[in-house]
């Protein structure tokens, strides 16, 4: 800042900084003020057990990642050689079964709620991509097992991937490449997609029931309830 500037220019600049950082902060606060990011209340229509399956999916993902990290600490051979390792592997496997089961029930629920309504299409689409990425992650996990399963699955799956040209670049019989996809690239993708998905959910709020009208228009006595 040059010394020749008028003091009030500094003031104006401070109040409404036109730099990237300030713009990003203002945008973030506008799109997702703290009470929307972590609200301590929810719309009255959010009253069904089906809403739990999203958070159960998040919880299962946390357990999948946690157990995967323990396996990573000791390396890919560990679980074949140690009974503790095998137990951690079992946890990893069962948490994956739970993760995908919860996610699919969540998908069924969101489908029957048509939860893409009201500018929520991106929420749905990040969910679908997360679902596909999870299938890919589970698949590469099976390839990274180093047992009969991995041998058979890789030598079978290569035909499908080769038939559409993917196999030339994504070689399912290359254990090193598959392990990297399984523990680095795909989990990172799922992580980003999940955060994005959740931010979108919080920004728009939980989708209203089909055809529901805010009570104001309904002319009930609940007007003061609105934020």
């Amino acid at each position, binding site marked *: 800042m040059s010394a020749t500037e008028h003091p009030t220019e500094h003031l104006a600049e401070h109040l409404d900084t036109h730099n990237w950082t300030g713009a990003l902060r203002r945008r973030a606060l506008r799109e997702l003020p703290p009470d929307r990011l972590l609200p301590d209340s929810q719309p009255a229509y959010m009253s069904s057990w089906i809403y739990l399956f999203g958070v159960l999916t998040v919880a299962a993902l946390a357990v999948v990642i946690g157990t995967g990290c323990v396996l990573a600490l000791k390396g890919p051979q560990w679980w074949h050689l140690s009974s503790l390792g095998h137990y951690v592997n079992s946890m990893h496997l069962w948490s994956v079964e739970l993760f995908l089961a919860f996610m699919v*029930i969540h998908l069924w629920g969101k489908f029957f709620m048509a939860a893409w309504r009201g500018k929520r299409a991106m929420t749905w689409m990040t969910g679908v991509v997360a679902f596909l990425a999870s299938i890919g992650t589970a698949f590469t996990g099976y390839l990274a097992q180093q047992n009969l399963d991995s041998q058979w699955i890789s030598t079978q799956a290569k035909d499908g991937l080769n038939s559409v040209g993917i196999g030339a670049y994504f070689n399912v019989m290359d254990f090193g490449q598959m392990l990297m996809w399984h523990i680095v690239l795909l989990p990172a993708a799922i992580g980003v997609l999940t955060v994005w998905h959740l931010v979108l959910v919080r920004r728009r709020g939980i989708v209203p029931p089909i055809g529901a009208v805010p009570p104001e228009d309904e002319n009930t006595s609940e007007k003061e*309830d609105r934020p």
Partner: protein
Amino acid sequence: MLTLPPLPARLLAAPIDLNGPGHYLHWGVIQISVANLVVIGLMLIAFVAAILLPFPRKRGRR
């Protein structure tokens, strides 16, 4: 084969052993393992239950 595995191995051994010949069901073109069928069945039950079971109504509105 009679030597006992070390203690941690015994503690961590699964009481229900799912190894051994798999059980499969066939209907025409459909073949499915009992294990997968159980998983899918439980998912459907959870879905239907989540929709049908009454959700506790929290203490009045804010």
